[in-house]
C-alpha cells in the first residue's frame, strides 16, 4: 500500500514534469520541470531498490545535466526579460500555435532577405513544399506538424500498451518456460555474483534492508568493474572525446566567425554578440 501510494505520487510528478517540459513557453521553466521529473524517477529507483542509481540520477541528471541546460540557456541570453520575450516567438520559446501561416509570418521578421522571400513565397503552397524536403525544411515545417506529432505519439503509446497487455501475462509467466533460459541464468548469475552478500542477507534476518542496500552498491560495482570493464573503459574514452570535441567545436567556430567577418552583415554580428 505504501509502495502503491509512493508510486502514484512519483508517477504524477514524473508525468506532470514531463508535460511541463513539453508545453512550457520559457526554456528555464522547462529545465526546472525536468528536474522535477528526474527527482520522480529517482524516487522510483529507490522504490525498485536501486539505491546507487537513485543517487546518481539526482547527482548527474538533476545536478550536472540540468545545470548544463540552464547554463546554456542563460549563456544564450534568454530569460524572462523583455528582450527575451520579444525574441521568443521565433527563437528560444517557439510559438505554441504551430499553424504554418502564422509561423511563416513570424520567421521573416527575424531572418534576412533571401529567406524572407523564400518564406513568403513558399508559405502559400505548403502542401507543394511538403514534397520538397529542402525548401520545406528551410522555410517552415510540415502543415499540421503538431497534430501529426501528437497522433504519432499516441499511436506509439497504443502499440506499446497493446504489446504490454496482449503479451503481458504470458510474457511474465512464460519467462520460466520459453525464454526461461535467459531469465534463469540471469537469476543464477545474480546469486552467483552476490556470493557473500547473499549469505549476509540470509543470516541476518533483522537487517535485511540495510544489508541489501549495501549489497546493491557492491554488486553493481562488481557488475560494472568486473563483467563490463571494457564498456566502462569505452565510456571513459567517450567522455574524453565528447569533452575535447565540444571544446574544439566551440573554438573553431570562434575562429571561423572572426575570419569570416567580411561575409557577415553588421546586423548579424550585432545580434550574434548580444
Amino acid at each position, binding site marked *: 500500500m505504501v509502495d502503491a501510494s509512493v508510486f502514484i505520487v512519483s508517477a504524477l510528478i514524473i508525468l506532470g514534469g514531463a508535460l511541463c517540459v*513539453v508545453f512550457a513557453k520559457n526554456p528555464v521553466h522547462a529545465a526546472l520541470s525536468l528536474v522535477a521529473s528526474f527527482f520522480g524517477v529517482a524516487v522510483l*529507483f529507490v522504490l525498485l531498490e536501486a539505491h*546507487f542509481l537513485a543517487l546518481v540520477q539526482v547527482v548527474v541528471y538533476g545536478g550536472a545535466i540540468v545545470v548544463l541546460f540552464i547554463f546554456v540557456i542563460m549563456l*544564450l541570453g534568454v530569460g524572462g526579460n523583455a528582450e527575451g520575450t520579444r525574441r521568443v516567438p521565433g527563437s528560444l520559446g517557439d510559438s505554441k500555435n504551430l499553424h504554418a501561416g502564422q509561423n511563416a509570418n513570424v520567421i521573416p521578421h527575424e531572418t534576412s532577405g533571401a529567406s524572407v522571400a523564400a518564406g513568403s513565397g513558399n508559405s502559400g503552397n505548403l502542401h507543394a513544399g511538403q514534397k520538397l524536403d529542402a525548401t520545406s525544411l528551410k522555410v517552415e515545417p510540415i502543415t499540421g506538424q503538431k497534430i501529426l*506529432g501528437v497522433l504519432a505519439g499516441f499511436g506509439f503509446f497504443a502499440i506499446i500498451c497493446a504489446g504490454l497487455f496482449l503479451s503481458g501475462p504470458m510474457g511474465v509467466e512464460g519467462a520460466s518456460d520459453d525464454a526461461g533460459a535467459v*531469465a534463469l541464468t540471469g537469476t543464477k548469475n545474480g546469486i552467483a555474483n552476490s556470493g557473500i552478500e547473499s549469505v549476509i542477507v540470509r543470516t541476518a534476518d533483522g537487517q535485511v534492508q540495510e544489508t541489501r542496500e549495501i549489497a546493491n552498491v557492491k554488486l*553493481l560495482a562488481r557488475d560494472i568493474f568486473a563483467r563490463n570493464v571494457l564498456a566502462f573503459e569505452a565510456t571513459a574514452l567517450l567522455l574524453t572525446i565528447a569533452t575535447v570535441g*565540444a571544446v574544439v567545436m*566551440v573554438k573553431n*567556430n570562434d575562429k571561423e566567425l572572426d575570419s569570416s567577418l567580411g561575409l557577415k552583415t553588421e546586423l548579424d554580428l550585432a545580434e550574434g554578440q548580444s
Partner: protein
Amino acid sequence: MEVTETWYLLLSAALFTIGMIGFLIRRNPLIMFMCVELMLNAVNISFVAFSDVLDDLSGQSAVFFVLVVAAAEVVIGLSLVVMLYRRKSKVSVDDLAELRG
C-alpha cells in the same frame, strides 16, 4: 494494491510518449534535448523495473552506461546549439536545414 512491473512499464511508455511528442512538435533544440532526456529516463525506468523483476543487475549497469552516454550527448548537443546560436543569432531547428551538403 501491489505495484507490479506492469505499472512501471506503463509509466515508462507514457513518459517515452510524452518525450516523443515533445521532440516531434517543438522546434527549439534545447527543449528537444530535454525531450530526449525524458525518453532516456523512460527507458531507464523500464531497465530498472526488469532488473528488479528478473533479479539481475545487468539492467542497472545498463542504466549506468545510458546515463554516461546521455551526459556525453548533452555536452555535444549543447555545444552545437551554442555554435548555431553564434551563427544565426536565433535558435531554431529549421536553421539546421542549411547544414545539408
